[in-house]
């Protein structure tokens, strides 16, 4: 069969208006259904004709999945809330600015106007071999084309690579982990609420999926507890182009200080592994210590312990080290910076 790209194949389009209806449809079509949130990831797969769902379930008509609501203990963001709404929401900006910062660095304005928070955290890997439709591990095959003696793997993983060396490209995911967010997932058996970092799955567990969503599952909302509201936040994303580019690495941290000591901290990075990594060892090591460049330095070194570079991505190790360092120890801004 010859291959052709850039024509979206036909599918059934289902546009449920409620979660209950969506669930029924998903149960009915099971593995034949493809869930579309903003579509920014879906359309690539569909237009490349690599994924060919019989049924596309468009969630954009489900009002209950949208919106940002203050709750007794923090805030709940519907999974279908647009990234630009997250960026611009006063409550998010004021108390959970880390998420607003992360969301604002996603791709481009138009994509933020359409892409959703749920879609951003649930997006698939961007490994260029996988996305070319090559039959790699992640596509159900038996090879990783990126980690070979000649593989081009500048964007790939330095940590927790297991057969597949793709990375998770989400910018908001590490921010949500740092904010200790809970993900509310509707499964056919009921509703589950899980810690953000448990939503994501590495290749050692499931090489074809980035998260726990399986057919019939629906990410409903993301709850951010008030625990970290107004904490000292740090988010930095490194990318080649200053817009419309995936992270080469990003870091998100939330820190509570008591005087100059780190009373508590949560820190996560992404694009270093196939799932966003919460750096628990770093958190434990710096908790209680002075918030200083020296602590940052030590934290950075600790963060990259065990990192294994591929042929073209060794830079990610010092990059991650320095981003973690800055997240904790601060940035030395240039005197002339505007």
């Amino acid at each position, binding site marked *: 069969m*010859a291959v052709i790209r*850039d024509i979206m194949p036909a599918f059934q389009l289902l546009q449920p208006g409620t979660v209950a209806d969506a669930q029924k449809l998903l149960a009915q079509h099971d593995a034949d259904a493809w869930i579309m949130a903003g579509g920014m990831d879906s359309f690539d797969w569909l237009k490349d004709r690599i994924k060919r769902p019989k049924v596309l379930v468009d969630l954009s008509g489900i009002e209950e999945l949208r919106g940002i609501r203050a709750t007794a203990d923090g805030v709940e963001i519907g999974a279908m809330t647009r990234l630009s709404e997250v960026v611009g929401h006063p409550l998010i900006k004021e108390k959970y600015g880390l998420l607003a910062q992360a969301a604002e660095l996603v791709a481009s304005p138009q994509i933020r106007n359409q892409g959703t928070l749920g879609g951003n955290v649930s997006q698939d890997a961007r490994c260029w071999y996988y996305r070319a439709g090559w039959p790699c591990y992640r596509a159900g095959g038996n090879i990783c084309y990126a980690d070979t003696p000649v593989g*081009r793997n500048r964007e790939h993983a330095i940590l927790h690579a297991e057969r597949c060396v793709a990375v998770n490209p989400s910018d908001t995911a590490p921010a949500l982990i740092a904010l200790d967010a809970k993900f509310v997932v509707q499964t056919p058996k009921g509703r589950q609420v899980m810690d953000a970092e448990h939503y994501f799955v590495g290749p050692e567990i499931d090489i074809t999926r980035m998260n726990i969503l399986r057919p019939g599952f629906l990410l409903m909302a993301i709850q951010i507890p008030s625990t970290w509201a107004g904490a000292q936040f740090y988010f930095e994303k*490194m990318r080649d182009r*200053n817009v419309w580019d995936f992270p080469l690495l990003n870091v998100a941290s939330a820190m509570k200080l008591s005087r100059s000591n780190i009373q508590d901290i949560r820190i996560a990075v992404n694009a270093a592994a196939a799932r966003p990594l919460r750096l628990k060892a770093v958190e434990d090591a710096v908790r209680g210590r002075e918030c200083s460049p020296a602590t940052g330095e030590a934290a950075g070194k600790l963060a990259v312990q065990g990192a294994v570079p591929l042929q073209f991505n*060794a830079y990610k190790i*010092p990059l991650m080290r320095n981003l973690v360092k800055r997240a904790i120890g601060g940035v030395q801004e240039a005197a002339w*910076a505007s």
Partner: protein
Amino acid sequence: MPSPKSEMQKFGAKYKLIGKDYPTPDLYAKVTGKSKYAEDFRVDGMLFCKLLLSPVPHGRVKHLDLSKALAMPGVKAILTQDDLPAPADSVTDLGVTIKANTQGEKALTMEPLYQGEPILAVAAVDEWTAAEAIEKIDIEFEHLPFALDPLETLRPRGPNPRVEGNVWVEEENSPPRVGVLKWKEEDFAPAKYGQLPMGKPQEEWSYGDLDAGFKNAALVLDETFVTPDTSHQTLEPRTALAYWQNGKVFLHMGTQSTVQTLAGLGRWLNMDRSQIVLISEYTGGGFGSKATGYIFAIIPALLAKKANAPVMMRISREEEHFIGRARPGFQGRIKAGFAKDGRITAVDMYAIGNNGPYDEAGDVGASGEIVSLLYQPPAMRWRGVTVLTNTPPRGPQSAPGGMQGIVMMEPILAKAARQLSLDHVAIHRINSPEGKAEWGPASNGKRAHATSAFLKEAFDRGAEQFRWKERVAQPKRSGSKVRGVGVSSSCFFAGSVGYDGLFVIRPDGRIAIQSGIGNLGTESLSDVHRVVAEVLGVPWEKCDVIWGNTSKNLPWTCVSGGSQTTHAMTRAAHAAAMDGKQKLQEIAAKTFGGTPEQYEVGNEKVFRKGGGRSLTLAQAAQRAIQLGGKYDGHEPPPDVNKYTKTSIAALAGQGLVAAAKDKYPHDGQSFSYVASFAEVEVDLETGKYFLTDYLAVADVGTVIHPKALSGQVLGRSILGMGHAMGQKWVFDPQYGHTISRRFYHTKPPTILDVPTGMQWAALDIPDPETPVGARGIGEPPVGGGCGAVLNALSDALGDEVFRRAPVNLDTILTSLEAGRPMQEPLTAFI
């Protein structure tokens, strides 16, 4: 340090129109969405076509079964290599026949030479059907060895990208053929140290005493530099629509040139060009890739014939990546000697160009010529090889070859300045060409020369406007940030001569200016014709520019590429205007008596000097029709091109027909020059850098249209910056596939990758060798955009960070971390 936005520059002090801004005649349609590009046309019964692309980098179709596809309802025709006409020989204007190159590129092939090469095309009632038909095609390939990297195929037992070899071999009196060039194993010894191996070249030239130059040098540098392969990626893909009527084929496509595209289409279709109507009113960018159209446009034309229905071929962005041309990446090496004052004593240059599998791009040759002009080495040797590879075909891209040569040379100049403790502007200035500067190798003992060069003045102006001295003196390092400033010289060929101008003064008093120039947004399409209005003293509002359709009687026009148009066509416009003026004077003399010299043209009139009787242009046009003969086009000027004569014949009788060939004297080759200044700020902890300021000062002769010029000076600068900052191709070496297929892989610069307040200036010194004094500008800024950014980076980071472009944060960070250059030194496509 952001410099203040430059004051509004004033140009054209002695002109009414030249040097002044005006809304171009295509702008209203563009801004309202009414402008029609190829894909915007609809024809009744239009079919759509999709292409089957090769999955192999080199192979042969060994089994092809179309039956299931053809059996699908809605599938109307399938076009393969067998349906293509044999490529026709071409005949030059001088009547010389150039034999068709049978080993050249075809629109479709059964022996693909790169992954992504079109194999066949399916026409169906819609794209969905065409796509499904393609999926129903059984196709198998025989796999042949492939080569992606020029050095790989130059190795003694390296794979050949084509069955016949890996280079083009020039033959006397016949088209070039593919042959084999292999180097010796020992030639590759320098590769171990990251230096370019320099085996037997294909071509070489030299002048001056190279050995003496190096011997007398205070400093000799020998540097290897690798430049990226970069797609043109015009925003409009090379979509085309074709249909046939009464034996004529009507083709809608985006092309840079209108008139000059016909020849190629005629050759590819093996048809007389009078049977081809090209409609191309708006073209979504070219940058060299659509200079004279593209061969793939014949696919819908031939399919339309086969299916007996109009065919629209929409090209996807990914297809555009494969067939849309790219700049050849260079693996180059320059040894340069410098005197204590920074003056270059000798240059020994070696360039290997990665050509892709088909027709040779001229980049390698141009690189040496530009370096010889721009840096004025008293002695120079140039050697070059253009190597075929199984990668998408290359073609000229803004400043083809010149840009790569400049990018090889600039880091050396900056390094020399550091080692000799010289100011960077000073070292550029001292090596700049000036006046009738010589360039290239000697032929018959004499080297060619430029028409003029005012690059030193450009550096002086730029250094002042950029506040160069202040910037150099400011602190470099603060916090984790380090700042660097860089300058670069740049230039390229900027003009040709000998084309025709043509316009009609109509009986309603309006002037219909026939423009054979393509419309790719540079606005030369109408800018050059401002000369007609200027010379005749007619308000621009009375002029209508007719363009974009070869059935609309256009004059013989230069290729709209290579920065030649402004130069060539202001000359032609000037010549035609002078002819029109002459004819008006003659008509007045015939009408009112006296000699033509006694009459003056101006204020939409021809009138007797010192007052007296006059004819309005409308009256003169009516008179011309009455007079007939040469006045209304029934007798064309003898020396205009036969293409122009055909157009004149069609226009004859419609008014006063003014037409002339540009025969103005021209001593030297025209070049335009740019002095570029850039400032960067690098974060040492991440390697991330921002370009914080940029200034380009252009020496382009007389400024015709300042706003259009600013777009070109800064736009082409950014094109160059893209080469420094991130644009590249990546292949998987195992399968020979392009894996950088998307913009987020190939990384063309975005609006946030460049300073928000860039600056430009133009010297506005007329070139002495052309009547209006204007030269072209499309190509010259490109090398400067890239060179200035690279030099600013090495100013910030030192010489030991990068040895190839683009330079990204990964390069900077790993090299800083290791304390030595960590980039792969020679490998292509990293």
